[in-house]
């Protein structure tokens, strides 16, 4: 089943009088349970595409179907709601709240959820998420007391708190060394296999991209080519595990 379908997506920024086309007609389909890497040189429009996919921005033209819904023309508030329920984000710079415990960082998105959880239920759910990313013993640590890899895992737990079907990661390993990068990528693979979460990550590192089953290469606002590759030690697979 296709979770994401893009048809002729274009994005043009207006810089004064000059129109700057950044995405020049992107068509793409991503099935549920895929782990996709988006690569390309810097400035090729990867982040712009990710923002559109993540419903943070809307395209200038084109259609975007997410989970059977056309979302490119939704209002700001509707997109916020959609992000809360269906999408998870992992950022290059973690974006954790400083001087706030890991548990509270993870529980934060719940305060914007329509159905209200009790305080205790929210904390339990956050603790459960942290346990899933292997940080059950770090609930009360503040970001400054955690390593980069641990911080990114807290961020992943936060992205997963509302059980979204899709996870977006823009350069998730950009600020990590190779060993902790590996940790985070293995976490992605596990989530992808065990929970069937669709993961789309942006990277310019071929080694990182090699963890994905499907690598989409972009250049100057268009899709250059696409390659399917099994990650190390894994078979190519469809659907949720």
């Amino acid at each position: 089943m296709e979770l994401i379908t893009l048809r002729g997506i274009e994005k043009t920024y207006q810089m004064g009088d000059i129109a700057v086309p950044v995405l020049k007609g992107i068509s793409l389909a991503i099935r549920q349970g895929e782990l996709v890497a988006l690569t390309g040189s810097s400035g090729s429009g990867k982040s712009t595409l990710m923002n559109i996919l993540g419903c943070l921005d809307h395209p200038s033209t084109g259609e975007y179907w997410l989970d059977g819904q056309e979302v490119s023309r939704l209002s700001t508030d509707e997109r916020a709601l959609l992000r809360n329920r269906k999408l998870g984000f992992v950022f290059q710079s973690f974006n954790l709240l400083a001087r706030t415990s890991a548990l509270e960082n993870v529980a934060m998105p719940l305060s914007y959820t329509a159905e209200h959880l009790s305080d205790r239920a929210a904390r339990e759910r956050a603790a459960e998420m942290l346990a899933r990313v292997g940080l059950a013993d770090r609930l009360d640590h503040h970001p400054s007391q955690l390593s980069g890899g641990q911080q990114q895992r807290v961020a992943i737990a936060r992205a997963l708190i509302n059980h979204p079907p899709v996870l977006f990661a823009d350069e998730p390993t950009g600020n990590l060394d190779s060993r902790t990068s590996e940790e985070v990528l293995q976490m992605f693979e596990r989530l992808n296999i065990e929970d069937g979460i669709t993961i789309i990550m942006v990277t310019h590192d071929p080694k990182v991209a090699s963890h994905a089953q499907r690598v989409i290469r972009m250049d100057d606002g268009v899709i250059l080519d696409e390659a399917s590759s099994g990650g190390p030690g894994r078979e190519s697979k469809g659907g949720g595990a």
Partner: protein
Amino acid sequence: MKVYTTARTAFRALRRNPMRAMLTTLGIVIGVGAVIAMMEIGAGSSAALKKTIASMGANVLVIRPGTASSGGITFGSGSTTTMTPEDSQAILRECPSIRNATPMVRARAQVVYGNRNWVPNAIYGVTPAYLDVQDWSILAEGDPFSERDVLNGNRVCLLGQTLVRELFEGESPVGKEIRIKNIAFRVIGVLTPKGANMMGLDQDDVIIAPWTTIKYRVTGLSLANTNQSAVAATDSVNTLSNLYPTTPRSLYPERSSIQQANNPMPIRFANIDQVMAAASNAEEISAAIEQISLVLRERHRIRPGEPDDFIIRDMAELTRTLSTTTKLMTNLLLAVALISLVVGGVGIMNIMLVSVTERTREIGLRMAVGARGRDILRQFLVEAVVLCLTGGAMGIVLGHGGSLLVRTLLNWPVETSPSAIAASVLVSAGVGIIFGFYPAWKASRLDPIEALRYE
């Protein structure tokens, strides 16, 4: 998003920078603190002022006979004799705005006790209602005289503190006999001290006695104004009554049989010097004046268009002057408070703008995980309000502490003002909302992508 959760988030955000939050709210703390302290001190002094006015009888109306005039010459207030004790009763009965009323006869005479003597400011002949009219019901010692004493013209009296001091030298006067114009009066009570009034008149230099006694035994002037021999007649009655003190007295001066034969004059009324009436409260005074005027015009059979034969005086002028002063003070304080709150509010706005800029990435993140513009708006607004309320609470504590300090150190009258506290809470919340709105609105309008990219 629940308000409770928002408030908790706001508290957490503020706790991340406690020193800055403290310094930011300083304006509010000082503003509210000043207001509370001033309000409490102001309320205290205005209560003290009110007490002073009340002791002088703020709600008291004095009704005197009007001026007589003859051939273009006026003889001054009181020169006609038209007020009667019945007028006083009618005023009490028929004027709903009047709490109590008493007729009054004034005399001035030497008072003797043992080998000491004193001439008090005034000897007032009244009914027991006088004590209520003057808010003087609580006596320092003894009991007030009764209506029966008035009816019987009993020779009893209450002494003011000055007389006690001058005549008795600290001895208790209750039960002792003093002589006024050679007539023995038993002292049955002592008035509480009132001190001097606004004009410097010693209010404690008085004797209070039944008006019948004063009128017919001490002044004895009711009809004597017109007939000199009547003085002798009343005097002789008094002498007799000294011999037989238990004989009930008639209310009206008795005339000798020769007098009555010579001059068969029906006694129409006993005239009195004035009526003192207390309005039920300060707001009722003007209504009371109208009612009294109506009642007296009817009783005195004054036709429409004819001038009153009485004069009604009240303390309104004095009360007005004092309340104007108080109002001016309050307004001045309010202006100062307003300025300090505006300054405090600008401080809040400034720091909230800094906070929004500082936390741009946090705002972007919150938006990315599903916060809508209005959630962000509410969060920052609540934060500003929490900041202001914390400042307000500290200000209330500070102001209250300050006023207590003033009370203990300077002995100023201070009164806790719950309305000022409530107003401070509302005003600080209001300052938070007004000055927090712009930064919060700015935060809510951020673009999540830009915000997340912000360095």
